């Protein structure tokens, strides 16, 4: 009789969160906390499984960024085997990671954040949604849908499925890319670049009218962490870790992702299931850092592709040091999308992409390895330990949203202090608190993607913890 594994409770995978806002004796907001109330336990599920199953298992971690999990997992597998994947496999991995950045960022910007940005944070909630956008900005929404389709189609053509592709493997990927698939992908490039330039123009034209939000939805000093290539350029697949401070100074450079646990540590708090990552030398909570689009553009000196480089130069002029306004995650996201399409075009023009040799094979040669890459929301680490026959003994996944957790809490608190009026809770206040979180596009088990109706609970508490006002939108 087959053994049955029962997981209880069944976790809510749409992402559930709660915000507590603490009000002092003066009636003013004193602090706020962003709670993640779901638990998944993927690391435990991995234990006892053969390590070569991990890319397939890890593809199921996320419905939005499965490719990044497959890549980090496959790279950890490369390390356990002690092999370098063939060039065609590396090119495929790069290609799909860019495709995923494109489709994930498109979802965040066009579908989730654009109602706030284009219709207004104070527009009526019954209009501030996808229907409102369809009514007011049909061309804009169609462009967003097409960009997401492009990213998904690349993933489908190479990986077999748009979501949860079974495609990566220790030592490479499972199959070569066909010329027919490559040619179809190439057909989307021109239109995608055009759409991104339209979107960048629209967003930049709105920034002057959004100064209040830019300044108060998560504008604070912190460290920024991301991967850079040997030239110090923007990198998503393989490179070294760089950390800069809010002045733009390099705090640490050429850090080996394999040794992530020498510079990153995770703390826990009893009120949330997400851990709090911090830069180890500065301790907790002083070592708070941000990852993802804003961080990547802050740590990289250039993009390395012409159109994105032009945008990045302009982006960097928004601050003398690092760009610290979390609101600019949106702008950074669009620049990264443009860069991704440019890189996809380069990769499609590389004849080695169609190479037949896509997998290096070996038995396990090491008992421990780390795989890392840049996922849409930030740097991702998969750390595996196996026994002599390759059975997984331990897995540790350090995911971008956890690394942004301190920053998200600070952003929520800053937004609450600025916009919340105890006793007069309004939908507009709620939306601004949501917007502060949405800048980070958090992946609470890869979700909380909602326009206007994020499943949030906001509680106002006094210093003793007594709840005196509550809005439940779950």
């Amino acid at each position, binding site marked *: 009789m087959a053994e*049955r*594994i*029962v*997981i209880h409770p*069944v976790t809510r995978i*749409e992402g559930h969160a709660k915000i507590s806002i603490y009000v002092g004796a003066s009636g003013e907001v004193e602090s706020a906390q962003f709670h993640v109330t779901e638990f998944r336990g993927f690391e435990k599920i991995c234990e006892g499984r053969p390590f070569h199953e991990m890319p397939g298992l890890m593809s*199921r971690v996320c*419905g*939005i960024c499965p490719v990044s999990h497959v890549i980090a997992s496959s790279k950890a597998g490369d390390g356990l085997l002690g092999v370098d994947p063939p060039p065609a496999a590396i090119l495929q991995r790069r290609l799909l990671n860019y495709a995923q950045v494109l489709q994930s960022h498109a979802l965040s910007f066009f*579908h*989730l954040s654009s109602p706030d940005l284009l219709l207004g944070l104070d527009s009526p909630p*019954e209009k501030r*949604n*996808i*229907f*409102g956008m*369809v*009514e007011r900005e*049909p061309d804009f*929404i*169609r462009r*967003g*849908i*097409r960009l*997401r*389709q492009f990213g*998904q189609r690349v993933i489908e053509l190479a990986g077999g499925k748009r*979501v949860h592709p079974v495609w990566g493997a220790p030592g490479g990927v499972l199959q070569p890319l066909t010329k027919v698939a490559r040619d179809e992908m190439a057909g989307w490039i021109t239109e995608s670049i055009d759409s991104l330039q339209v979107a960048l123009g629209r967003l930049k034209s709105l920034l002057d009218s959004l100064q209040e939000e830019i300044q108060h939805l998560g504008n604070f000093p912190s460290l920024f962490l991301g991967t850079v290539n040997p030239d110090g350029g923007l990198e998503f697949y393989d490179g070294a870790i760089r950390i800069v401070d809010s002045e733009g100074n390099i705090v640490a450079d050429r850090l080996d992702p394999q040794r992530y646990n020498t510079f990153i540590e995770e703390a826990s708090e009893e009120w949330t299931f997400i851990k709090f990552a911090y830069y180890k030398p500065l301790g907790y909570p002083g070592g708070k850092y941000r990852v993802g689009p804003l961080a990547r553009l802050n740590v990289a000196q250039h993009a390395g592709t012409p159109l994105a480089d032009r945008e990045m130069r302009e982006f960097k002029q928004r601050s003398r040091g690092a760009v610290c306004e979390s609101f600019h995650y949106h702008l950074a996201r669009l620049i990264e999308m443009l860069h991704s399409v440019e890189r996809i075009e380069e990769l499609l023009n590389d004849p080695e992409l169609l190479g037949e040799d896509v997998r290096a094979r070996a038995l396990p040669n090491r008992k421990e390895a780390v795989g890392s890459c840049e996922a849409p929301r930030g740097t991702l680490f998969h750390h595996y330990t196996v026994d002599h026959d390759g059975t997984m003994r331990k897995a540790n996944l350090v995911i971008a949203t956890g690394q942004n957790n301190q920053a998200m809490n600070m952003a929520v608190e800053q937004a609450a202090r600025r916009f919340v009026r105890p006793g007069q809770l309004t939908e507009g206040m709620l939306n601004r608190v949501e917007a502060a979180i949405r800048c980070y596009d958090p992946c609470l088990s890869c*979700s909380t*993607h*909602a*326009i*206007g*109706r*994020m*499943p949030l609970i906001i509680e106002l508490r006094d210093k003793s913890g007594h709840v005196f006002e509550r809005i439940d939108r779950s």
Partner: protein
Amino acid sequence: MRALIIAIGNRLRADDGVAHRVADLLTGAPIRRVHQLTPEVAADMQEADTVIFLDADPAADHPSLERVQSPAQTAGSLSHSMTPEVVVTMASRLYGFQGDAWLCRLYARDFSASPEISPEAAAQLEPAAQLIQNLLETRCTSPR
């Protein structure tokens, strides 16, 4: 007739994957398989004149077909998951979709982590497929 079948659900969550199993039995129309409905599905509908959504439903006792009401009254939360009504409304407004849209609700009670569906869900596969096949044939032979 240009029909499109949209099968919704997760094959690894027991009865939640029942729509895909019904879709496996269908012939004569392209099948789009999704975990959940997202805005891109609206774009996929633009060439179709008949769209049939198949979805697991914990409240359904037996396979049933109903027309999708459009326009939707609310946009919903646009999470990862949209309703057929919202997708049809988007397809209509963004891509000029003017066809008929149907929803086939399928019995589903067990949503545990399993690739197997319950015997009750399995019992409806053939009748559900027949129901949809009949609709497709009717649409082929009858003027709209």
